[in-house]
């Protein structure tokens, strides 16, 4: 198993993790553990949201930079780590 696969497996195996989706900044799918259509929805919606968050942050301060985005919802939490030209998205159910 490649190092990449090992990392993804380790993350997905964490408690309460529903899925991991990795996309490039355009929202094009690179790797996902969710089913294809849901993964694609996450890819598109979250890459758009990250783009807007990034723009907002630099509009407020041109020297600032988006580092992490946490979206808490009624049902779960979406965590997004944008780095270089990729995004790692993890969907986690909160502790019951």
């Amino acid at each position, binding site marked *: 198993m490649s190092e*990449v696969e090992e990392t993804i497996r380790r993350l997905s195996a964490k*408690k309460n993790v529903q899925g991991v989706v990795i996309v490039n900044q355009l929202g094009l799918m690179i790797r996902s553990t969710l089913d294809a259509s849901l993964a694609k929805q996450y890819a598109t919606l979250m890459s758009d949201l990250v783009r807007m968050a990034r723009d907002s942050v630099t509009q407020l301060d041109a020297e600032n930079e988006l580092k992490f985005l946490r979206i808490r919802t009624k049902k779960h939490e979406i965590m997004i*780590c944008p780095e270089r*030209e*990729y995004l790692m998205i993890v969907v986690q159910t909160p502790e019951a």
Partner: protein
Amino acid sequence: EAVIPQEVPELTDEERKAILHSTDFVEFLDHSSKILERAMSERYDFMKDYTLGLDDTTEAV
């Protein structure tokens, strides 16, 4: 020349493979997975009692 697709394009298997094996991507994965693992290990329970917030206690429509 390839026809420009109307829909959002997808990466080809070849492009995907090239990314997965690039140093850039491997470094990204290493870095972001560490940050995410830390974020996940946090006691992120500040919403615990509030997940069913005000909105849910008002009358259903």
